């Protein structure tokens, strides 16, 4: 932007001169012209600035804003079934019967036509899989009807459907179909919270054996909080040491903090596997000196996850604390001491409050990064220690339920934003120092 300033001044200083030396009253045309030229120059300056940052802007748009909006969009936009069975939904609306009744023949006929079309376009299995997400077994029910649909020329269709699978005569089946009538809905958010829409259209809890995510959300927050607290405790001590040791020692310590920080996450996690496994370094050592008679279970459980994550995230806590501590003049504590404060009082009432922005920044940073942790729990945790990102990935890559994965992602995003807002209210974002 600095390159624009001279041009701007130039144009504004020259213009009056060109209007003549005797300074006639500036007419409206001259004013307009001046304003237009000024605007054009400003605009050109802005364009140049934008062109300069265009690569970055495009990168951010393509790699961040676009995926993020797609994610949010996918969490409620779900057109597979409504667009796959358009006639059925039209017939259902025209029929308009109560939810505990089975629809009439025209609805079945419409479904048959939709099925034939879907089979021709190769979309039948996709619709069946989407229905199955709402109600177990519906995939089978749907595909059974699809497989033999071409062998029947015309109705009545109700007996045909009842013949291939009795579930077609159940109001529950139709209630599920009706629950999916809208292309935009909140069903994915319901399942992300272990809820579902019942056949009566009310929101109810999932059956006990299908509830996962509420527990996983709580677990994710629990592990993240534990790791953030551990990082705060260890990080504070290390940062204090770094800030108050002599230059040589501090440099050496800094390298010891930064070296693992620059090492790949995967390498550090794998190193922990080597250390923690049943016949790993720690267990062999403890067995060797006779401290234990049975190897300790330190992997595939919460202990392993907490240890590995704390180690990996520690630099994120140390660096902001260190940068804040280094700026606290040592004379403050000395002044407190000379005025009669005990070492504890001086530390608690003078030193600690000044560290607060760094401590808060470090803890918040660790907590937010920990919320999205995936690889470390997957490698050193047991099946019961997986965090929310594992289930997002699982829904994306294995279950292929992108809507649910998106809804879970949106919930995590909302949690982080909420946290950020709370932090801003409590400490103030401008006070946060990240190093």
């Amino acid at each position: 932007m600095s390159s624009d300033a001279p041009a701007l001044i130039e144009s504004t200083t020259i213009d009056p001169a060109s209007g003549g030396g005797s300074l006639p009253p500036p007419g409206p045309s001259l004013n307009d012209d001046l304003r237009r030229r000024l605007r054009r120059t400003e605009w050109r300056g802005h364009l140049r600035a934008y062109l300069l940052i265009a690569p970055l802007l495009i990168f951010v748009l393509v790699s961040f804003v676009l995926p993020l909006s797609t994610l949010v969009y996918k969490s409620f936009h779900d057109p597979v079934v409504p667009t796959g069975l358009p006639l059925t939904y039209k017939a259902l609306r025209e029929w308009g019967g109560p939810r505990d009744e089975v629809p009439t023949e025209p609805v079945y006929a419409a479904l048959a036509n939709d099925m034939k079309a879907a089979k021709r376009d190769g979309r039948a299995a996709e619709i069946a899989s989407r229905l199955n997400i709402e109600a177990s077994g519906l995939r089978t029910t749907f595909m059974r009807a699809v497989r033999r649909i071409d062998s029947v020329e015309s109705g009545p269709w109700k007996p045909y459907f009842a013949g291939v699978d009795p579930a077609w005569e159940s109001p529950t089946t139709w209630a599920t179909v009706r629950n999916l009538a809208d292309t935009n809905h909140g069903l994915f958010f319901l399942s992300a919270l272990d809820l579902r829409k019942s056949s009566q259209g009310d929101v109810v809890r999932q059956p006990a054996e299908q509830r996962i995510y509420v527990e996983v959300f709580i677990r994710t927050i629990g592990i993240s909080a534990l790791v953030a607290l551990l990082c705060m405790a260890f990080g504070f001590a290390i940062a204090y040491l770094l800030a108050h040791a002599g230059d040589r020692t501090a440099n050496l310590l800094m390298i010891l903090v930064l070296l693992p920080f620059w090492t790949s996450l995967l390498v550090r996690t794998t190193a922990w596997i080597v250390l923690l496994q049943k016949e790993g370094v720690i267990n062999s050592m403890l067995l060797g000196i006779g401290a234990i008679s049975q190897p300790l279970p330190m992997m595939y459980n919460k202990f392993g996850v907490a240890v590995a994550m704390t180690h990996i995230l520690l630099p994120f806590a140390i660096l902001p604390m260190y940068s804040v501590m280094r700026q606290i003049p040592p004379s403050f504590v000395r002044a407190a001491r000379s005025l009669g404060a005990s070492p504890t009082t001086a530390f608690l009432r003078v030193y600690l409050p000044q560290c607060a922005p760094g401590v808060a920044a470090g803890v918040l940073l660790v907590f937010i990064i920990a919320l999205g942790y995936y690889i470390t729990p997957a490698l050193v945790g047991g099946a019961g220690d997986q965090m929310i990102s594992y289930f997002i990935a699982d829904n994306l890559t294995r279950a292929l339920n992108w809507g649910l994965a998106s809804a879970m992602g949106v919930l995590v995003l909302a949690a982080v934003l909420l946290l950020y807002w709370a932090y801003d209210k409590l400490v103030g974002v401008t006070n946060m120092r990240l190093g």
Partner: protein
Amino acid sequence: MNMNLPLVAVILGASLLPVVGAQAQGSITVTAWGGAYSRVQTETIYRPFSEKTGIKVTPEDYNGGLAEIGAQVQTGNVKWDVVNVEVFDAVKGCEEGLFERIDLKSMPAGSDGTPADRDFTAGAMSPCGVISETYSNVMAYDAARLKDNGPKKLEDFFDVKRFPGKRALRKVPGVALEWALMADGVAPADVYKVLSTAAGQARAFKKLDTIKADLVWWTAGAQPAQLLASGEVVMTSVYNGRIYDANLQGKRNFAIVWDGQVQVAEGWVILKNGKNTKAALEFVKYATSTQPLAEQAKRLPYAPPRASALAKVDGPTKQWLPNLPRPGRAVVTDAEFWNENGDDLNKRFAAWLAK
């Protein structure tokens, strides 16, 4: 200061340039199970195929399932041309329109002249796939550690009192549920009938609950042998060929318990809308012809699907083939059952695991 507009334009243009990743002609990506399996296939199938046809083969690894395949086909970004899938995934993927159809009759005749459709004793995998081999999910342990006190029958896998320590299973409901039911007293012939009912599913999960705290889950086929070797687990489910290979290549003394084995056929499918479907079909034809099948079976004890290939298998692998008559229970995986119930059981399994 004058801004260098051409430079800006170049930077802008470069940022917009799409990533160009066009594949060379006459080259295919073949995705299979990694580890010993892919090593043997590279030597016995990929390399001779490339020498014969000039088509380059790029091997990729995956851990099974239709998710990655589905994502590629549905987003129109097909990177894998040929994939080795398990029989239930072949059936389901074919139904979902993920694979090209392949006529078994169009496969080459056996080396003795038997037409393909009769030479393939294992039959067709689905309208879309050609079987490459049948493997078996077996229980294995390290005989160097347990000596003669190793497990003898499937029930021992669930007996944490007599055999303390962790045990590993593949992180899918398949095999785990079949084993749970058989160890709970269900006859092999009734396993899928029982598993079709809600009560049967509850029974299987309840049985798994009894050892849940002692279970470790693997995903890649190479992991079970590593878990045994590091002593992390006392026994594990494993693809039978990996044990043979670990004993041969890794000088291990792993032992197989054949009781309760679950046999699964697997084979090649061609992804729909791929760029190299013609070369891919050439590959499938070659990979499932008599000679490569026999060569592969001589290196890894998986049962070849052709009678003509089985007749050529001799040497040490022969007694390790899964489909020999043996004492002990055996189940052949029910592709139709898994096609119909796979989604629901996967969901329930995931919820059960997370608790």
